[in-house]
């Protein structure tokens, strides 16, 4: 009786671990959307931290303006990515795939440029950890 129950417990444990592993799986499009969402959250959270530094007089107004400009440049690329991903989801043809690839490359570069700049003042890795990334 006790052994049967222990076997049941072990079975549930295995099931929990299997479900945990399954939680990591997703389609390429799902992964792309998830990655883009994570990147967006990091950029927006770091922008808040950056603005907070300016309010606390830790950075100059010129630096604040540069960070804001970098964010707005990234935002244009992110908007293009959002539209490209949505278009590819709808059409899934060669042309929309090419546009999506270009948008992914562009927004990756823009996000890197923005995070490189803001990362001089904001602890981006710590922020990413706080966001669970």
């Amino acid at each position, binding site marked *: 009786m006790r052994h049967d129950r222990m076997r049941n417990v072990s079975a549930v*444990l295995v099931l*929990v671990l299997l479900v945990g592993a399954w*939680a990591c799986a997703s389609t390429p499009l799902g*992964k792309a959307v998830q990655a883009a969402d994570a990147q967006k959250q990091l950029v927006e959270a770091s922008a808040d931290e950056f603005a907070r530094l300016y309010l606390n007089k830790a950075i100059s107004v*010129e630096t604040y303006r540069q960070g804001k400009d970098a964010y707005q440049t990234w935002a244009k690329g992110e908007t293009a990515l959002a539209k490209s991903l949505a278009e590819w989801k709808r059409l899934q043809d060669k042309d929309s795939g090419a546009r999506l690839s270009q948008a992914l490359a562009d927004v990756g570069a823009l996000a890197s440029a923005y995070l490189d700049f803001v990362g001089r003042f904001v602890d981006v890795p710590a922020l990413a950890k706080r966001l669970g990334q």
Partner: protein
Amino acid sequence: MDPITILTIGIGLASTLLQEAKKLGLVADESWSKYVDGGLHAMQTATQIVAHIADGSTSYDGLTAEEIEALLLPAEWSASEVRRLADEKAAAEGV
């Protein structure tokens, strides 16, 4: 939260409940079957929670085109309160 953490919390909770039940005289020390039942129940609950999280994780796969666009469109700089305040400060500084 990862599955192991959930499992640990679930088992910890079951142990705490068991200890409380023992204090109240509801469970005898040798009553292993009730202990195992408690652990089993905690793990089943953990499984349900993990399955729920898994649904959330894979929900990215099931988004419609409109939902993807809405999710990924960036916020305006001044959409955030702290950034709006920073903009006001920058404007006050005449930049």
